[in-house]
């Protein structure tokens, strides 16, 4: 019997399994041997013609629909190498509103990259989805600053109707970091470091006439070196080159970070001050772990923002207190400009290091954020025949069990048990220590 492995990527499209596969950080090959294939059908048809007079009894049906016990459908854990252009695909990093984000390796330069995978089908369902993405791509291509995420490459796959936006590699967002800490806030000096980079990036964007409109911790990413990158320019607006001022008419950012002029539904408002406000809310969030304005519903929230009244916890002292008050002034004209923020006392002073910094949370228990592309390359290029005899197969039931267990663990927030890490790829260390590197397979 032919042993057709379900490695065809189109098939992968049909089966929703890849979703689970990514959850568990592994690619599974369906071993289709146990499925009733055409050969079996012919045999059945033959039997049938011999027993024309007979009623179709249960036995016959069961013969016709060759039943396969789920125990017999087996999967094999394997890191299957996948290339998109010159990029080697790695594991899932996160999921955005438009699609998945995965790690990649540029096989020419060996630079780590992240790729945003957009499905046209999904995009078309979002109002203005396609146009927004096209605008964002155009915009990102024209920007170049160390604190603004850079778009490295854009690839299309017509067949699969997918778009790949290849970006600088980041390890996580400030939002994720905040959430990983008990008090959901940063020590002052750490908040200060990020805030300075945020203002630098914003100043650049504004100098390019770009109003970001959606500044929030979730859109501020960090590289492995701890450099902040402003990302997600999906709702950004570019002011016309010859416009006299920065008047905008539309606000589409995240509600909790919107300024009073948008919450109150004004027809037009100065754009750059919108970013100042949301940076103020972000800074407030960095240092207190809370939001200046809250509300049970978006109406309540906008009502509160519209009033512009908020309190700052007592433990926040001047000059930071004064800076927050200045950035969160209700009237955009009175609100501090980026220039004034730069000249503010709190900005020019680096607060003393008081506590260890909040670390970047680990990705799937890997606190070092090791390159996830490596195992795929290893599996692809090195013959693992000496381990071929003890290749692990497991059934869907086992797989599901493991997924449930994993989810339960995540919900409990407990550390990973040995059980689930058993089948994990061994750390690259072990492949360096291998006695004899087996012969390289032809790819």
């Amino acid at each position, binding site marked *: 019997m032919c042993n057709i492995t379900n490695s065809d990527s189109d098939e992968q499209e049909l089966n929703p399994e890849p979703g689970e596969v990514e959850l568990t950080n592994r690619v599974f090959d369906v071993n289709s041997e146990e499925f009733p294939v055409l050969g079996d059908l012919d045999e059945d048809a033959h039997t049938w013609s011999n027993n024309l007079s007979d009623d179709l009894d249960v036995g016959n049906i069961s013969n016709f629909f060759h039943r396969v016990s789920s125990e017999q459908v087996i999967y094999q854990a394997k890191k299957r190498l996948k290339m998109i252009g010159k990029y080697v695909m790695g594991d899932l990093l996160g999921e955005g509103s438009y699609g998945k984000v995965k790690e990649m390796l540029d096989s020419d330069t060996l630079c780590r990259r992240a790729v945003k995978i957009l499905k046209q089908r999904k995009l078309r369902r979002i109002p203005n989805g396609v146009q927004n993405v096209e605008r964002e791509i*155009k915009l990102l*291509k*024209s920007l170049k600053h160390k604190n603004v995420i850079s778009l490295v490459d854009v690839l299309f796959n017509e067949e699969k109707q997918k778009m790949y936006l290849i970006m600088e590699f980041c390890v996580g967002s400030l939002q994720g970091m905040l959430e990983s800490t008990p008090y959901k806030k940063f020590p002052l000096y750490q908040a200060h470091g990020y805030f300075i980079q945020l203002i630098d990036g914003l*100043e650049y964007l*504004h*100098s*390019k*006439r770009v109003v970001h409109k959606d500044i929030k911790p979730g859109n501020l990413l960090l590289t492995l070196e701890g450099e902040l990158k402003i990302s997600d320019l999906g709702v950004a607006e570019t*002011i016309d*080159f*010859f416009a006299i001022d920065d008047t905008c008419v539309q606000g589409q950012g995240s509600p909790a970070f919107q300024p009073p002029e948008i919450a109150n539904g004004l027809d037009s408002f100065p754009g750059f001050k919108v970013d100042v406000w949301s940076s103020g809310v972000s800074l407030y969030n960095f240092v207190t772990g809370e939001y200046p304005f809250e509300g049970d519903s978006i109406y309540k929230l906008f009502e509160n923002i519209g009033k512009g009244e908020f309190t700052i916890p007592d433990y926040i002292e001047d*000059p930071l207190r004064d800076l927050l008050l200045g950035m969160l002034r209700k009237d955009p004209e009175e609100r501090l400009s980026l*220039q004034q923020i730069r*000249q503010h*006392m*709190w900005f*020019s*002073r*680096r607060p003393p290091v008081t506590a260890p910094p909040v670390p970047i949370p680990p990705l799937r228990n890997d606190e070092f954020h090791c390159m996830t592309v490596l195992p795929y390359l290893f599996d692809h290029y090195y013959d693992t025949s000496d381990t071929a005899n003890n290749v692990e197969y497991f059934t869907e039931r086992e797989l599901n069990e493991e997924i449930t267990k994993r989810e339960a663990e995540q919900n409990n927030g407990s550390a990973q048990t040995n059980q689930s890490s058993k089948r994990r790829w061994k750390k690259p260390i072990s492949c360096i220590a291998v006695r004899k590197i087996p012969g390289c397979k032809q790819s």
Partner: protein
Amino acid sequence: MPLFGKSQKSPTDIVKALKEAVNALEKGEKKAEKAQEEVSKNLVLIKNMLYGTSDAEPQTDIIVAQLAQELYNSNLLLLLIQNLNRIDFEGKKDVAQVFNNILRRQIGTRSPTVEYICTKPEILFTLMSGYELQEIALNCGTMLRECARYEALAKIMLYSDDFYNFFRYVEVSTFDIASDAFSTFKELLTRHKILCADFLEVNYDKVFSHYQRLLNSENYVTRRQSLKLLGELLLDRHNFTVMTRYISNPDNLKLMMNMLKERSRNIQFEAFHVFKVFVANPNKPKPILDILLRNQDKLVDFLMKFHTDRAEDEQFNDEKAYLIRQIKELRPMAGH
């Protein structure tokens, strides 16, 4: 005195000794060689206090504060910079390192050295004139760029008459000095957005008449770099007022049209990015419109064939197509 272990010399002693040595060096007496040795030795001592060595940590804040205070009181920073060309090679580098470290010093929100230099702007002017002397130009450059990071100091430099010497420094024949001067020049004109915008606005005529010389320079690198910087300045939203003024002057348009035809493709390309602003301007003054109209057909032809091999650059092609359309649709002003 202990045989081993570090010297117990106080900052006061070191600064005093260094000052005497520099003074001796300045006079150029017979003992100059000895003085130079003394200068180098004391500079190393100061440097080690600030940065530490492989087996000693930097000194405590109190000692550093004392040192800084002595440096301010004795006016030694200026003296060192004035005599920089007399100090030996390693010593020059040490001066720059000490200077930059002291400059970065902060007490709370204050930067005492920045405040000190504001009261002694000769320090900045002496540093700027350092570009005249080949052997100290690069050392002065590193110190100047460190100064330019502080708005107050950048302001003094921009608004001084000495600033216009940069238009000469960026053209000197020694390539590394010219490049270094250009990066300081650029830093001064772009680092502090609002300050720079105000400066360009207030001194528009003077700056741009000087700038014109750079754009017409004999030196290819100067021409190309200054054209690129011009594009950056005009396309920066902070310089909106300056940009509108620049694009209403027909002489500037003529210059850009000539640069579009330069031999170098890089210059052509940079010129394109300035030229496009003239065409895209929705309120073109009559003289500008006249020039464009007079060359309407030629420009369309020219742009059709302009850098056609840049197929990859989507933005460029969009812009080019937009310009061609705009120029084709140009009509004389109504009522003329």
